[in-house]
């Protein structure tokens, strides 16, 4: 039996179905992402697991036990909120220690565990600071430490990196994955960023209009999208004669589908082309290898492998 099971989970707000019959099994230690556009039901799903939203139907089981019968305060889950929701009137150490205090952990042990967890997220020197004296990235780490220190059964991450700038986000992704591997906590991440979901997860749940379109490892979801929605949401895709072809799989060749370059955009590590062909507009991405590339208005031939 899986560690965390969502069975036919639903939530309706009036006539609007936010989550519509979601079934998902998560293994112990697994990192699963709920990925989808805003309004797809991913956050509602997370809040139902956390206990802040009551499902209108279905079941949630954790370790074989009915989780819906447990009060939110007794579920023992670690949650990192999008806004971090740090307690502004408490120091970093008090923030992180709050959950342990609620569990009745003695002060001495509390100090040790808070110290260890802050070391884990690289904030060992910031215990006496207040949240507003920290940068966004540091606040994010405090929120993570606060969730991890109680040794939660599950770690729930609600768009935890969306308030960070692009560069910091990439660094935090790597770090978040390392930390999760170190502590081995089962983790559910909610995100609208497909790159983030693919970088972090063992499996991705691509959600649309309250339903799971595909549940698969990132590579599989990208290479073999189950639906057109998944193909479109996980990166760019071309529909050529009914087949879905990723832009980076198309090469300029001596023969193949003929077309004219309409636009050419340089993006540093790669070139982005839009080519007018008999089968419509095709997007092509080519690595920037330093070689000369076709210019706008040039006639080109497009070829791609049968595998894609």
């Amino acid at each position, binding site marked *: 039996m899986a560690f965390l099971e969502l069975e036919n989970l639903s939530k309706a707000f009036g006539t609007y179905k936010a989550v519509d019959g979601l079934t998902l099994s998560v293994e112990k230690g697994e990192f699963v992402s709920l990925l989808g556009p805003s309004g797809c039901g991913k956050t509602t799903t997370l809040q139902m697991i956390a206990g802040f939203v009551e499902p209108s139907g279905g079941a949630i089981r954790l370790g074989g036990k009915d989780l819906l019968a447990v009060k939110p*305060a007794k579920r023992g889950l670690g949650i990192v909120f999008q*806004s971090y929701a740090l307690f502004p*009137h408490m120091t970093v150490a008090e923030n992180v220690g709050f959950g342990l205090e609620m569990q009745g952990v003695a002060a001495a042990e509390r100090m040790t565990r808070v110290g260890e967890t802050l070391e884990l997220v690289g904030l060992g020197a910031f215990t006496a600071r207040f949240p507003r004296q920290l940068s966004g990235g540091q606040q994010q780490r405090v929120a993570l430490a606060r969730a991890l220190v109680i040794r939660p059964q599950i770690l729930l991450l609600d768009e935890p990196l969306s308030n960070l700038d692009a560069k910091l986000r990439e660094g935090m992704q790597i770090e978040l994955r390392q930390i999760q591997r170190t502590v081995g906590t089962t983790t559910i991440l909610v995100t609208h960023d497909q790159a983030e979901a693919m970088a972090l997860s063992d499996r991705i749940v691509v959600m649309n209009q309250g339903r799971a379109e595909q549940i698969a490892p990132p590579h599989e979801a990208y290479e073999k999208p189950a639906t057109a929605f998944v193909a479109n949401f996980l990166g760019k895709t071309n529909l050529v004669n009914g087949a879905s072809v990723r832009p980076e799989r198309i090469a300029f060749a001596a023969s193949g589908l003929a077309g004219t370059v309409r636009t050419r955009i340089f993006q540093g590590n790669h070139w982005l082309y839009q080519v007018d062909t008999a089968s419509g507009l095709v997007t092509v991405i080519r690595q920037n290898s330093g070689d000369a590339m076709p210019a706008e208005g040039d006639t080109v031939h497009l070829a791609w492998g049968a595998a894609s």
Partner: protein
Amino acid sequence: MRTTPYLMSLPALALFAGVVVVPLAMTVLLSFHDWGQYKGIEPVFILKNWHEVLSDSYFHEMFGRTFRIAFCVTLLAALLGAPEAYILNRMKSPWRGLFLLVILGPLLISVVARTLGWALLFGGSSGLVNKALINLGLASSPLPFMFTETGVIVALTHVLMPYMVLAVWASLQRLDPQIENAAIALGAGPFTVLRRIVLPQVMPGILSGAVIVFALAASAFATPAIIGGRRLKVASTLAYDEFLNTLNWPLGAAVAVLLLVALVAIVWGTNRLVERRYAQVFA
């Protein structure tokens, strides 16, 4: 043009000087003049009035009562207003607007009208509530309300409550909507969430509301004048009496200036304390 901004604010400055600074300065000056029953006001510089105000136990009692009432009103307004604002903040959309109107609505009605309402309900044996209580056999004589400190405190609390609710409401609006959930997820019960998470964060709001309510309560005139009357004087009604009944303007001026100075000192001190206490915690 460097002078343009100054020239443009000249009308406002002139108005401010004309209606606030000059009368205030004149009042301060007036408090140092002499006065006699038959000679009237004499424009000399003496400390007689100040000596009287600061040494006579009659004035001590008056100022003691004024600040005692203001303190009780502030405490009551905080104890009732803060929970009121919290409940209001948790209400769903149509009700919230409606009850906000119910709470703030009284601000649109004159203080005199609101206070007279209390007098009609509790004024002696003809007051509606008193009549009902006596007829129901719940009380043998009218509740002592008029001309009592309790009466003034109750009526003033009612009049000033909206200011406290507004101040606390403003700080509740700045609360992260997820912060209570964050505490609950960490195992905190509802009471712990309120005491450890919500209350400390709205404390600056409660304190700034308290400063407003205290200042307004200590300088209130209409409510103590109607409920307290001539029998239960506070600093503002005392100053009024000195000016308009005894016609001892200099003494009245000394009372008024002392009230002003005491209030400014208390408000300024509290503000400094609040700012220093919360500077590093809140932006």
